[in-house]
């Protein structure tokens, strides 16, 4: 039982990171109709923002984390201005290819800036373990689950209890109608990109101590976040959360109880099954046609 608890919580922690990356994916897709193939590199940038602020600049934890997230918000705004705005009247495929290209640029920029050697990003809870039912749980893994839960609650409050969030949802549903209603559409779209970047940044900061900060870490995250989004339902926030947790748990429980050699196969086989049988995912897509 202790082994199961340990695997379950580690799976939840890993799934939480996938869920955060998937939420960023969904926010951008819902608001702009763009599938951001640079999403994995956003998470990688988040981790390296942490390396820059905490390890390189030597800032204390709260200041370093805040500075890293501010940098990510600024990066989201920059992405909106430099990549999305010039391409927004282009066909969606052009924008998607643009995100792929920018993802490659981001990876190479990180390579130039930080080199190919990985970095160790230390957790504020480094070395602390918690005993749950006889299972030794890393305090950092537990923190990842708790932080993700809090963030999901805050995102729900933002989207359903604030004028800003309701405006963002309005833009996601129908850009023209939102503009006619007097909403500043560009500002709200920029905020969507900034929010996605900040969530990716949080995912990166949480992931850094679990993995190493590595310029190649973005691709596997993007793949898992993509699988999570397909399984949960493209465009659905609850779907992104459920999908992320499902992929994380499947990865660890499948590897332990079925086969470690085919652990990725299990998650991706489920994704393919969904594409064949229920392409809208578990939670479906709330917005069928954008205005």
């Amino acid at each position, binding site marked *: 039982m202790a082994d199961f608890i340990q695997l379950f919580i580690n799976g939840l922690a890993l799934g939480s990171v996938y869920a955060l990356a998937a939420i960023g994916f969904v926010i951008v897709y819902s608001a702009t109709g763009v599938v951001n193939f640079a999403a994995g590199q956003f998470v990688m940038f988040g981790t390296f923002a942490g390396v820059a602020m905490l390890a390189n600049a030597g800032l204390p934890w709260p200041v370093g984390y805040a500075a890293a997230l501010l940098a990510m918000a600024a990066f989201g705004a920059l992405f909106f201005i430099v990549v999305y705005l010039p391409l927004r009247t282009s066909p969606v495929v052009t924008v998607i290819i643009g995100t792929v290209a920018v993802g490659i640029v981001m990876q190479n920029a990180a390579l130039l800036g930080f080199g190919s050697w990985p970095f160790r990003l230390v957790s504020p809870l480094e070395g602390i373990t918690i005993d749950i039912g006889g299972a030794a749980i890393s305090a950092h893994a537990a923190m990842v689950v708790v932080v993700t839960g809090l963030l999901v609650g805050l995102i729900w409050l933002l989207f359903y209890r604030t004028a800003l969030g309701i405006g963002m949802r309005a833009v996601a549903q129908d850009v023209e109608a939102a503009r006619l209603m007097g909403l500043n559409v560009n500002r709200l779209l920029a905020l969507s990109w900034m929010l996605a970047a900040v969530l990716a940044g949080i995912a990166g900061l949480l992931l850094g101590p679990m993995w190493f900060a590595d310029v*190649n870490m973005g691709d596997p995250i993007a793949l898992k976040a993509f699988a999570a989004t397909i399984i949960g339902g493209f465009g659905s926030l609850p779907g992104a959360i459920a999908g992320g947790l499902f992929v994380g748990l499947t990865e*660890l429980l499948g*590897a332990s109880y079925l086969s*470690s050699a085919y652990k990725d196969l299990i998650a991706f086989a489920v994704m393919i099954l969904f594409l064949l049988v229920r392409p809208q995912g578990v939670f479906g897509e709330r917005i069928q046609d954008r205005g």
Partner: protein
Amino acid sequence: MTMTRQGFLRLVLAASVAPVGAGLALAQQGDILVGATVPITGPLSLTGKQYHNALQLAEQDINAAGGVNGRKIKIVFEDTQASNSTAVNAFMKLAQETKPAFYFLSSYSTQNLATSPELKKIAVPAMYAGGADIVAEGGNEWLFRVRPADAVSARGMVEAAKLLNAKKPGIIFIQNDFGQGGAQIAAKQFEAAGTPVVGMEAYGQNDKDFSAQMISLRGKGADVILLFNYPQDGALLLRQAKMLGLKMPLVTSSAALVPAALQLISPADLDNVWGVVDAYMDPSVGGRMAEFVARYKKAFGIDPDPYGLAYYDGALIMAEGMRKVGLDPKALRDWLVNLRDWPGIGHVYTFDAKGNGVSDLAIVKARSGTKTLELVKAVKLD
């Protein structure tokens, strides 16, 4: 002064041909080109940079010592990144454009397996440091290995597990020719010793979480776990083992103990960790080892690792061969085949019929509370 039409044409012809003749003369008198396909960027560069550096150091040293019978050598590098197809393209670029007299290939067996058929076609000798036995078993008479084969490493790791009194060993391996090959050899060794493995768990090269594999082996009662890994995932395995609270000793393959991997982990992560290294690079032994470590560190600002040392030794062997038998590929290959007891810094090299030049390694463990490796036992295998 007037010039006839015939005279003018002769002058043009002479002017056209002269640079070609001069070029040929220069090529004959110029540097000896040596090709090196090395993972300089990407995740495999953790060890790749080591032999990228070491080969440059060897080039300097060979040329400072008079080169090869008065001619300097020049090593031309191509980046293999972390891809087998890129490794083949890098090799083909060298073969078609540079046409080197000798090659150094990657230390990654999967890349060398992909490149080996092309090397066989062009028939030029090459040295490599990948461990997978399948590379040497492929029957390519142009390949020469300058570090222990995985069979040797696996036997060394089993020896370490025996020293730790393992009764229920478990194995975690990276899912490629290196990891699978090493794990299977170790499993057979344990079986023969009457202590069969309780479980073998695999992971992919891009995997970042190994808790399922480690918890599974712990659940099966493993009292020692052998790890066949690359540097980055090896460091992550050691770190996650401590995060999971694993108490049993871990025995790692050499990649997790190179300086590039050690800088990613803390002394606590190395608690109760043993491993094998190709060569025990302790400068306190003095002599050429101390000199090499000091010069390498001064030149590149980092500690050298056994991979770098293997390529440095390999380059010096190559230069001696060229001095003795020239650049003819077959003569150079035959010289290497017959090489016996060549005293390198890391090993004493003797190539067997399959091109394996090294049959010794060292079992080490971290000194308590530090990342300093101390020698447990030097192992020489047949």
